[in-house]
């Protein structure tokens, strides 16, 4: 008799504890999910901002504002000869280049 009452009582108590813990967890999950949504939105907004800053148009604009220019000549290191090979600044064996606005060889 005491055994049965004890078992039943114990079982009920355990069930109550489990339910309470789960319900607490559900509340916690809901709260965390809401926090997650806010954070995800912030991440998205920041991502969009980074993408906008990274776009070539904005980079070019910022670079120009800093006075940067596109490197007019290319330089390569030839690993076989270990020499610096540079792009010539003038066309070889050609008459002098006419002055044309926008063209800089």
């Amino acid at each position: 008799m005491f055994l049965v009452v004890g078992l039943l009582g114990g079982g009920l108590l355990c069930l109550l504890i489990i339910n309470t813990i789960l319900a607490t967890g559900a509340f916690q999950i809901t709260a965390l999910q809401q926090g997650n949504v806010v954070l995800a939105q912030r991440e998205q907004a920041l991502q969009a901002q980074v993408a906008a800053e990274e776009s070539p148009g904005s980079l070019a604009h910022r670079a120009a504002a800093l006075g940067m220019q596109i490197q007019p000549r290319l330089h390569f290191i030839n690993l076989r000869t270990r020499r610096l090979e540079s792009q010539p600044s003038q066309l070889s064996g050609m008459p002098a280049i006419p002055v044309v606005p926008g063209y800089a060889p």
Partner: protein
Amino acid sequence: MTAPGGGKDGRNRPRGPGRPPGAAGPRRPAPGRAREPGAGNPGKPGTRGQARRGDPGDEGTREPGPAPGRPSRAGRPGDRGGEGRRPGGRGPGGSRPARRVRLRRPGLRRASPARRLHASLLCVGFALSLVAGRLVQLQGLEGASFSKQASNYRLRIIHIPAERGTIKTADGTILAMTVQDDMVIADPPQITGTTARGTMAVREQLAGLLAGPLHMTRAAIVGKLYHPSSTDYVLLAQGVPAPVGNQIEAVLTKRSLAGIYLRPTYVRTYPSKDLAAGLVGFTTNSGPGGDLRGQAGIEQSFNSLLAGRDGQQQVQTGITGQPIPFSAAKVQPVVPGGSVRLTILASLQWEAQQACQERVRATHADNCTIVVEQPSTGRILALAQYPTFDNGDVTNLASTVDLPVAGIFPPGSTAKVITAAAALEHGETPTTSYTVPEQITVGGGFTFHDAEWHPTEQLTLAGIVAHSSNVGMVQVAEHVNPQVQYDYYRKFGVGVPTGLPLPDASAGQLPPPSKWWGDERYTLAFGQGVAATAVQMAGVYATIANHGVRVMPSIVAGTTGPSGTYRPAPRPHRIRVIQPATAAELIRILQQVPYLDYTIADQPWGEIPGYSVASKTGTAQVWDQKAGCLCQYGSSYIGMAPASNPKLVVAVNIQNPKSADYYGNYVAGPAFYQVMKFALASLKIPPDGGKRPDVPLTAG
């Protein structure tokens, strides 16, 4: 109760065996006193029960009295025991007078117990059957609908939207992405005070709070509240960033102001603004908070991959909306949107767009397209156009046309290489000599002129192509069978779909020889009477650059599916169009063009120090719809570098320039030079020395 004589006080107990029963009253209440009204033996509580049972005289005297509890007491075993101990003759004698008393009452005659039992059974049975019937009705017949009502009350369907995937360039610059923002809606009837003045004050206060975050004036907000679009709905602002929305919500909750609602919406943003806008396309929203749908470009052709599939989840929720654990049942899993990676290089694309814009402004042209292609892979590295548009704010549908793949134009002199290639593979050589007058009349009396007057010259086939002589090409075409010429056009990809996954990609216009006009075989020799797209013309030169093998152009490098795995695009088809020797001869001929432009026309557009460039100019006559004549021009400049082993092809086409000089080298050349130089540098292609082979241009 705490009195010294109280029963609970243990120290007093030993003293109280002789206490009066009144003091111990609470412990032995009414029954004792009721049965012993006389309280005849105080001080002897322990003997009370014995006295009751063992004193028959006491029972006997009470029997006739009006004691209602009596008959029931008779049923008690203890009482029976008491009776049993009575002397035999007195027991029955004591009970008889009681029955007589009852029988004397009038009209209270008991029916037979069996009938009484049956009747009550029937009554109870009937009542129970009613209950059972109702039970069957509720549980059985209408059970389904009731349980549905119950579950509707408990269950909530959570709509899980699939986020639309991104479109990126080959180097990872985001061209299109999805962000969530908020729509701010007001319900004016909820924003009221008790009086008109109070309403005004409440609305002013609300407007003051919202004006800052929404970037609106107070007056504008108040105006919207007083003039809503419908009685209880007015849209205050949309596209409000989510963090700002959260901030507004917090302020409103803090001040407990009602009537302002935030509705989350998914919007497509194009962070790189108009970068590759025509290629990417745009999306429309099926409604506030609705699904995004691609309407042009990659957004349209990859719509189902990008969109994914929305999911649904059914959960039981508590009163505050939080799901009850273990009650969730997934109805439909969400399939997240995949993403598309293009072959475009962001910086090169931007440079090409800048060049296009600059040329259109300088020459007051209608439009400009630039295609940069990698000949060995067919990858399109830039697909630029001007005018362009803002994908995020489409106001004019006509401006959203993806010109490089959809716009067709007569290619003009840039197509001369096709007929020249056919001639070279059918008996002619680069040094085959032609007498080229200023004009020529052929076949059925068709007369052709060169673009500018010149004395009669002895030109080689190489010279005809390099100097771009129409009269010369007409003579070259006479050596090529029309069907062969048509086949070469098709093999080079003109008049054939490009296979690009873009909704409005055009195949160009190339009528078959059976439908040719009388002079079409001659006009085809210099690129008139045929129409091609910018991508197709870039493909012609990419085929020559790739040693005669045409690689189908591709614009998508790969896709990332819902599972997150990247799948590269399948390898494009490769078709041999011309022999490697023919391609090499054509490249050598084309290398003369920048030199001629520079030395004869003072236009060094194709020259890049250190690099050998092979290119071709083109100036086509275009039909003018308004004037009804062939009096517009389309100027192009297409070339490859380094010519010794071409790694890049750049094709520039500018339609309807209104500058005094409308020739391809002047109008389109600067854009070619600018983009090619930038592309060589950004792809780190080393210079090849820039040597120009000697090809005899004149004969004799």
